[in-house]
């Protein structure tokens, strides 16, 4: 890759050396190599890109790009206006907008550079073609190509542009925030924030004992949660599906419908209802007390340990129907002759489950499990709607016992306006998820023996 870029770079220099006047001109004036050789529309388009970008940078972009290294130096000031009777506020630099538009302008610059290189190459190709006595492609030919030999370009342009605009740009912006001190004490518009390097990372990893302690405890709980939420759902879902599919079970459709009804109610509604239901003074506690089963309410959601168990159990109720649906499909695909053969060899139901069903299921569903695991690491809904991360603990910084890293991140942004710390944690979560996914995915049989499964 690097090698190719290297030779390409030399290639463009060679174009300059070997190029005629027009080719050389297009190093400075985009589209010259097309425009003056008859490709009017193409040439004008290149020229427009150059003119547009220069205009954009002069009127708008350059200001932000220049300020990007400092993220702004001018603070908001006010000046008394006797005619009005109050001090009029003169806005200063807004570090957040500088970061945002600075990044955007730079990315836009990269796009323009790509067009710039394309323009040079076109100019040189045109020169060579003409010298060889060939005919240049007209704009109409280019359009035809886009529907024919270069159809992939036509199809891919929109997704690539959208992904760059809606995913990559915001992502870079958010990631960069982790290297600033954008927190409660540095809020725009009255204050500036600036680059502080890796300080947030060192603080959260070991510098600030309370932060690092919170990070470690929430990380461990996040992993524990993701493990149980994923695998218990998986196992119970399979068992449920097996039970329903078992020969001799009547009205299968009815059972399937009964279990699927939990999916019919929107998740957030059922979660919030359950949260009310399990409250210290909620319906379940009141019922149990009135029945005389318990004398004191059970702190389903207000005791750290019990709350952790509660969220896992409630999540089972919410999640099992989905796994049941998915595994039903896979189970029906397992060749019946495998079971028959094993039965002849004298295998019981349990042996069949562990030696046929599970291996088959695992091979097919490992990618699904990985996705689920990562999704559960970031399972904001269940935790936030059920407990909001509570009960709070003095051992944690701005977090509660059932907070996942992702809900902690949410609290830091919304309640604390500590965007830089939240962004830092976001990056840490990403690293964890990426590591877990890559490791397990590449080692999974579904990937290694992809060709074997048909």
């Amino acid at each position, binding site marked *: 890759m690097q090698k190719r870029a290297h030779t390409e770079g030399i290639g463009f220099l060679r174009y300059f050396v070997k190029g005629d006047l027009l080719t050389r001109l297009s190093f400075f004036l985009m589209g010259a190599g097309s425009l003056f050789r008859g490709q009017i529309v193409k040439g004008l388009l290149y020229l427009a890109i150059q003119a547009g970008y220069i205009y954009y940078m002069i009127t708008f972009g350059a200001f932000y790009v220049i300020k990007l290294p400092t993220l702004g130096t001018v603070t908001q000031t006010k000046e008394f206006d006797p005619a009005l009777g109050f001090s009029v*506020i003169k806005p200063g630099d807004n570090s957040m907008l500088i970061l945002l538009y600075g990044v955007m302008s730079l990315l836009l610059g990269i796009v323009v550079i790509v067009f710039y290189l394309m323009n040079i190459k076109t100019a040189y190709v045109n020169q060579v073609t003409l010298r060889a006595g060939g005919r240049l492609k007209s704009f109409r030919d280019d359009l035809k190509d886009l529907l024919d030999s270069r159809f992939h370009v036509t199809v891919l342009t929109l997704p690539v542009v959208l992904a760059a605009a809606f995913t990559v740009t915001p992502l870079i912006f958010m990631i960069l925030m982790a290297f600033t001190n954008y927190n409660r004490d540095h809020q725009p*518009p009255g204050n500036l924030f600036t680059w502080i390097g890796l300080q947030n990372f060192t603080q959260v990893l070991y510098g600030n004992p309370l932060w690092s302690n919170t990070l470690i405890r929430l990380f461990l709980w996040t992993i524990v949660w993701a493990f149980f939420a994923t695998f218990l759902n998986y196992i119970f879902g399979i068992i449920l599906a097996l039970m329903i599919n078992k020969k001799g079970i009547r009205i299968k459709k009815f059972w399937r419908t009964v279990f699927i009804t939990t999916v019919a109610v929107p998740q957030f509604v059922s979660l919030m209802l359950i949260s009310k239901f399990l409250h210290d003074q909620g319906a379940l506690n009141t019922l149990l007390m009135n029945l005389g089963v318990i004398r004191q309410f059970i702190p389903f959601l207000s005791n750290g340990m019990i709350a952790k168990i509660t969220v896992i159990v409630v999540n089972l109720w919410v999640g099992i129907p989905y796994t049941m649906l998915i595994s039903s499909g896979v189970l029906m695909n397992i060749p019946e002759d495998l079971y028959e053969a094993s039965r002849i060899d004298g295998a019981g139901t349990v042996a069949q489950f562990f030696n046929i069903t599970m291996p088959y299921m695992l091979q097919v569903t490992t990618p699904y499990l990985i996705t689920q695991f990562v999704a559960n690491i970031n399972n904001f809904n269940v935790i936030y709607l059920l407990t909001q991360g509570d009960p*709070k*603990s003095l051992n944690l910084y701005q977090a509660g016992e059932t907070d996942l890293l992702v809900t902690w991140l949410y609290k830091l942004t919304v309640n604390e306006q500590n965007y830089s710390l939240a962004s830092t944690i976001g990056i840490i979560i990403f690293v964890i998820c990426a590591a877990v996914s890559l490791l397990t995915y590449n080692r999974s049989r579904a990937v290694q023996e992809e060709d074997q499964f048909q």
Partner: protein
Amino acid sequence: MKRKLVMLLTAATMVVSLVACGGGAGGNAGGAASQAAGGASSQESGGAEAGGAEAGGDVITLKVWGPQEEQALLQEMTESFKAQYPDKTFEIELGVVSEADAVSRYSEDPAAAADVFAFANDQLRDLVNAGALYEVEREADLAYINSEINALAIDSATLDGAIWAYPETADNGYFMYYDSSVFTEADMESLDAMIAAADAAGKKIFMDVSNGWYIASFFIGNGCTLSLAEDGTQQCDFNNAAGLAAAQGIQAFVDSSVFVTGDDSVFTAGLQDGSIAAGVSGTWNAEAVQGALGDNYAATKLPTYTTGDGTQAQMASFGGTKLIGVNSQSAHPAEAMDLAMWLTNEENQIRRFEARQIGPANIKAADSDAVRANIALAALALQSQHAVSQKDVGGAYWTPAEAFGTTLEAHDTSKDLQTLLDEMVAQITSGQ
């Protein structure tokens, strides 16, 4: 966060349009540039308008944020505001942002935030520190506030000797609602007597102790303080001897058989099914409580409680107000100030009370038979003698205080009270 994303997406759309049609780039970018410079250039035009240099033709756009329940009222008030200035053309846009969310919504994008917005006074320091507000400096405005607004409300809008917003209501506080068939007026003097009466009647007393707002009542009542240091870090002495005595008082209450905690819904539901006979809450629940208790509906100041030292201490409270501020990024600050003044004048404070039973900050508006006859507001007025302003309470206080209350409510005795208090104070004062 979500708002910021939306903003990013719109910004990103701009990039798309730039890339997608290179030819149109000039126009697009120009638009964006003028947008970004809008803050500065329209600032000047705002000045010009107010200076009277402008003919009435231009439309002055103002955005107002208020809570959901007040939208209809705001609509009326802004209509009457427009009628006040027939020579100017206003376009007033209302947005739903509750007083509690003002800071977080504002900080998402100051330039896109409302010109005039309502906020709870505990957010004043955050807003002033962020440079988000216009100081109230106009002579007429100051004269109105100083002469017609009650002192506690003025104090709640004052920071570093300057007034930063227009007081709108003076009713953000809490007191004790009770069922007069269970408690006598004498019972309401002390928490011990209340507990005894409730116990005898088999009823419960509600207080959300796992909430920094309410739990402070005990500590501040016993002489502890919350303050802010010069550098803005929170100071808290809840772990001194008085704090420990207060904490022992809380523990005794929490451990008593009549104690019940939860959120507003627990309180009102308990009143309705008759299990709860008294509770600490504020005016926002007045209607619900009155509906549940009917003729036995009563309210008064908070009682005294027995500290760990055996003395009686009057439970304090936070006395909060709601304020209306003018965004420092406003393109029309003078008109925005006019509107803020209008929304908080005597006439509109009376209308707000009539429509929503909210206690006015205006002295004359509060001095009416209707306000005095309001049981909840009367109780609030009684409690206000024991109320402290919330403006010296920073953001670092709430979560640790809630965690402390949660630990007590869970009857978790794995650490002794002094350790818990030390941990709480360490977190509150740890800066950040």
